[in-house]
């Protein structure tokens, strides 16, 4: 019997988990980083669309934990474990963190946000001892990514280079 395949969409500053036969995707990553954490044998994966490197940048009392690298990775690991993933078997794939514009502006820190997001996500993954097995980060192009928790392949689409799989 065929089961309907859903593509679970993850918005900006959002996260979710997925199990086969479903797929998970997020669109239009620019400076944001899409981090996929998965347990291949248990066939469970999670995706977070991280927007900013650190929750200390927040200027509000309540924060959206999926927005910041330091809070998103931790929360995503918890979600994956709750869905059946095993802490010591988790691996990660990353995409995004582009620098779409190069500016000579006063606010260069914010303009360099893509590389800073990538560094911050990697630092958090290291804290949880989760190896990054593949990545497609940096550059100056937007990306749409889709992950299949069955094959653990991450497809990355850019405007100029078509689709590649890591």
């Amino acid at each position, binding site marked *: 019997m065929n089961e309907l395949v859903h593509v679970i969409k993850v918005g900006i500053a959002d996260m979710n988990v997925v199990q086969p036969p479903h797929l998970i995707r997020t669109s239009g990553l620019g400076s944001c980083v899409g981090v996929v954490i998965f347990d291949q044998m248990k066939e469970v994966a999670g995706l977070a669309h991280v927007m900013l490197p650190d929750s200390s940048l927040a200027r509000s009392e309540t924060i959206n934990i999926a927005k910041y690298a330091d809070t998103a990775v931790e929360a995503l690991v918890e979600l994956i474990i709750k869905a059946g993933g095993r802490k010591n078997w988790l691996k990660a794939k990353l995409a995004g963190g582009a620098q779409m514009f190069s500016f000579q502006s006063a606010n260069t820190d914010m303009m360099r946000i893509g590389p800073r997001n990538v560094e911050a996500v990697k630092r958090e993954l290291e804290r949880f001892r989760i190896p990054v097995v593949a990545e497609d980060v940096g550059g100056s192009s*937007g990306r749409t990514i889709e992950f299949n928790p069955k094959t653990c392949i991450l497809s990355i689409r850019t405007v100029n280079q078509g689709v590649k799989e890591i």
Partner: protein
Amino acid sequence: MATIRDLNADHIDILKEIGNIGAGNAATALSQLLNKKIEMNVPNVQIVSFDEMMDLVGGAEQVVAAVFLRIEGEAPGSMFFVLSLPQAERFVKQMTGDALFSLASPHPSELGISALQELGNILAGSYLSALADFTKLTLYPSVPALTVDMIGAILQYGLLELSRVGDYAIVIDTAVHEEQQPEDSINGHFFLLPDPDSFVPIFRSLGVSYE
């Protein structure tokens, strides 16, 4: 600090007027540049989630030509001038006389790209100078940057400062299109995204309280 939800109808009207004056000035410049009639829609001021903002422009993956500049000064923010690819190509063809210009080609002509960049400079500059005249605020635009890519990836830059405060953006959106050309959802949009701290100076400059 006041939040986006504290905006009342007067505030929205003021933001609409900003869109009207800024884009009106830019549309006049565009019309002179291309020597043809340009029509402008009533500005749309919306308070939207980041994902809703992407839906406004036809989805995050929509490929567009966009000019982006940061505004520094008394009311910092981000401004985008977004064109659909066919529209951008039409404008370049008119300005350069190069009938074969295509943004889809792997190496679009440099002349065409620089014409598009210049178009963006002129339009963004006229939008901002109208805004500065109207509010009497000092605004310093960065050099505009042109890119052709997924709109979601581009607009993210305008959301960074806002995202530190919350999950909503106030978008001042004014669409322009050429007379007798089909309108589509991503035809020539000006997006002004003031940073969260800019609302107080903007409203104060126009005599409306917002604290």
